[in-house]
């Protein structure tokens, strides 16, 4: 074959290929009702015990049912459980499953599955670990009944089993639940209202869930994790969109039906579209935060920490995150989620001062001599970047020497675990945020803990805080819980366990062809229908 023949034949082959493609028929569109949802992040893995990211928890709530579920009043309600009994001494809990529950592979849900799931959950969950520490035995009694025997009473047992914080008590078949909790499961079989279509899963692009026809919803109306989870669509597609502008355009053009977390800057455009509804997504919102390293100078000195907290103006942070929409934020003179039953502002005056002069005075009293503050800021997260910029200016305004380290979230994740001094690979402060759902009480609020080296990054060591955490866990009624929370807030503020930069909310947006959308600490995808 010579050069000319080759070129001719190559061109011909291209045309043939193209015409062959043209001849291919498009797939017929069935009558399947599909809801297309853009989640907050990529579903990169799907083991809600192994990985505790919120997007995994949100997807897991579709596939795996829970024993109890918390409702919008923060009350734990029975979900898979039919009845429970606790002995008079509070040491023996006996639970019974609802009958007729099935896994997606058709097998019945039994107490053996529940026990194996609880064993795996309790190895990873902070409250589970507390129960495990006082556990005598956790055993099946019969096919539907199991008992949990403890050495000491645990008044928050039902709350632990109902909470919506990751990891939840997702019930898996025994063979799957026996997987080491530090290894990822490879089979995604649950008994929840949706089945996971594993063959269609393209991590980073798409996850598909199909209605589980044999799901047995409760009779009560759905309310967050509680009540009857009735599925109104045949198929739910999670479409992963890393670019917010693309997601906004796709929602406007009708290529997707519901966007979980629209960017604040794009909300006015969506609000102006007659086919789109916009409303608050998660009413529990988020608490912006920066954490200081209590182990090393300058923040090992409580007066330096107080100086920063005294100068801080939360409005600066909140405007940097959510812009000018005043409905989306509020100042937070404390550490707990506003609007929740145990919310308290006790002892929170320091966060209201906004006084640079007082801050400078405190710094002088602390003997601050210009030690560098290594401020590690993730630039790839809009919230941390915004907060980091505000903090850098704040620190400079009170005369602190800022070493601003701009990096990405992955690096912050590893660097914040370093306990070495800031000049040797460690850090002085980093920015983050906490889901409001985690901050309604101390149960899953890792960031409020102040038990030294065992505490969250920054390692605050404040016995007064820990005493009140224990008091809350032991509280027998709401009044006692409220008292413990008030004292806890006060102690945490005085010692500046960390600095809250304010409370902020986010919107969700959906097309008007979709009905049944509600607000919640996770996207409530049951009870939602599409015209």
């Amino acid at each position, binding site marked *: 074959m010579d050069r000319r023949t080759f070129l001719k034949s190559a061109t011909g082959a291209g045309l043939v290929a193209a015409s062959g493609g043209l001849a291919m028929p498009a797939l017929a569109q069935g009558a399947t009702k599909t809801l297309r949802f853009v989640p907050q992040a990529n579903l990169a893995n799907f083991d809600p015990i192994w990985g505790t990211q919120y997007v995994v928890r949100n997807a897991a709530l579709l596939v795996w049912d829970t024993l109890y579920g918390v409702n919008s009043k923060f009350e734990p309600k029975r979900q898979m459980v039919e009845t429970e009994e606790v002995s008079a001494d509070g040491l023996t809990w006996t639970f019974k499953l609802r009958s007729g529950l099935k896994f997606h592979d058709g097998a019945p849900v039994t107490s053996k599955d529940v026990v194996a799931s609880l064993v795996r959950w309790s190895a990873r969950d902070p409250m589970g670990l507390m129960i495990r520490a006082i556990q005598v035995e956790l055993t099946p009694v019969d096919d539907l009944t199991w008992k949990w025997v403890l050495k000491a009473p645990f008044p928050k047992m039902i709350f632990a089993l109902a909470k919506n*914080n990751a990891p939840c008590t997702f019930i898996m078949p025994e063979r799957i639940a026996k997987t080491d909790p530090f290894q990822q499961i490879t089979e995604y079989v649950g008994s929840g209202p949706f089945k996971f279509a594993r063959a269609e899963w393209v991590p980073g692009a798409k996850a598909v869930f199909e209605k589980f026809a044999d799901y047995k919803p409760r009779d009560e109306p759905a309310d967050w994790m509680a009540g009857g989870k009735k599925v109104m669509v045949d198929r739910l597609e999670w479409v992963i969109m890393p670019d917010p502008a693309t*997601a906004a355009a796709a929602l406007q053009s009708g290529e997707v039906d519901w966007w979980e977390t629209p960017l604040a800057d794009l909300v006015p455009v969506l609000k102006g579209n007659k086919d789109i509804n916009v409303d608050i997504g998660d009413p529990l919102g988020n608490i912006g935060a920066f954490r200081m390293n209590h182990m090393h100078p300058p923040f090992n000195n409580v007066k330096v920490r107080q100086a920063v907290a005294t100068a801080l103006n939360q409005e600066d942070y909140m405007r940097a995150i959510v812009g000018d929409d005043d409905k989306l934020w509020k100042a937070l003179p404390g550490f707990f989620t506003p609007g929740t039953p145990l919310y308290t502002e006790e002892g929170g005056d320091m966060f209201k001062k906004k006084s640079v002069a007082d801050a400078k005075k405190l710094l002088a009293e602390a003997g601050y001599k210009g030690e560098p503050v290594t401020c590690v800021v993730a630039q790839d997260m809009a919230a941390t970047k915004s907060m980091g910029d505000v903090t850098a200016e704040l620190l400079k305004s009170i005369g602190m020497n800022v070493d601003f380290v701009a990096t990405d979230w992955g690096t912050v994740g590893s660097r914040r675990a370093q306990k070495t001094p800031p000049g040797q690979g460690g850090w002085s402060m980093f920015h983050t945020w906490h889901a409001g759902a985690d901050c309604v009480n101390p149960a899953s609020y890792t960031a409020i803990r102040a038990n030294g080296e065992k505490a969250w990054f920054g390692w605050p060591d404040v016995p007064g805080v820990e005493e009140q955490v224990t008091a809350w866990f032991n509280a027998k009624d709401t009044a006692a819980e409220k008292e413990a929370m008030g004292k806890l807030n006060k102690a945490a503020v005085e010692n500046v366990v960390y600095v809250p930069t304010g409370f902020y909310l986010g919107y969700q947006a959906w097309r008007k062809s979709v009905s049944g959308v509600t607000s919640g600490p996770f996207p409530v995808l049951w009870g939602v229908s599409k015209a």
Partner: protein
Amino acid sequence: MFAFVVRRIITTIPVMAFVALFVFSLLYIAPGDPAAIIAGDQASPADVERIRASLGLDRPYLVRFAEWSFRVLQGDLGTSIFTSLPVTQLIAQRIEPTVSLMILTLIFAVVVAVPMGVIAAWKAGSWIDKGAMAFAVLGFSVPVFVVGYLLAYLFALKLDWLPVQGYTPIAQGFWPWLKNLILPAITLGLVYIALIARITRATMLEVLQQDYVRTAQAKGVSQKDVLFLHSLKNAAVPIVTIVGIGIALLIGGAVVTESVFAIPGLGRLTVDAILRRDYPVIQGVVLMFSLVYVLVNLLIDLTYTLVDPRIRY
């Protein structure tokens, strides 16, 4: 020629070995911890450590590199830390959209850029030339994502002619496939057009000064034939070279274009893996891109023999 191809393929081996060593070492010293990301914020340091150990990330550099290299030699790129899926499967899931986008972009760019460069050279100094070169400068200067957003706004949102985002496999029909790729290919193609058009113009200007061109014109050969048969053929080698070199540009541009148009391709796979520190995926994808680039260069070298019969290996 056969000996040349074999020799070039053999030289690929040390190149790939160096790329493998470089990428592995770079990731080893780069900050970030996938175990911390997996464990989430509620996890204790002990939990993170256990996950790190279960992933084998606590083992020495040499042990990990030796194991990985051994597997790669057997064609196993490892398993994603996050999804627990084989890297080869993840690449297979994503390769079609990226290859489709690159081929379409290549076709679009060459079809537009080469005539543009030829005409600009022919009409050098005229408003056509200035206009073409201004377009080329614009193509270079305007970021890919800006072009993407503008096209999506106009053709998808306002005119409703094309979809905003997504990808339809070619197995589901040619038009659905093409429909999803038109805007991304134009977006990605603009930079490429700018590059090819400028090189074509510069090379053609040189060729058009040659004696044989003048002779052809004196013989009364039509202007079209002078430009496209006599001149373009002789200018083809630099143009083919730049088309090949531009593949690297396409790979880089695909990362942004795939994000803007939510195309589930290799570019997004790479970015996601880097942000999460999914080492096996990063290593696998970079290795694959390197191999593609080396092979494209080989193909370019072979193409020279097709466009210029004087070149022989």
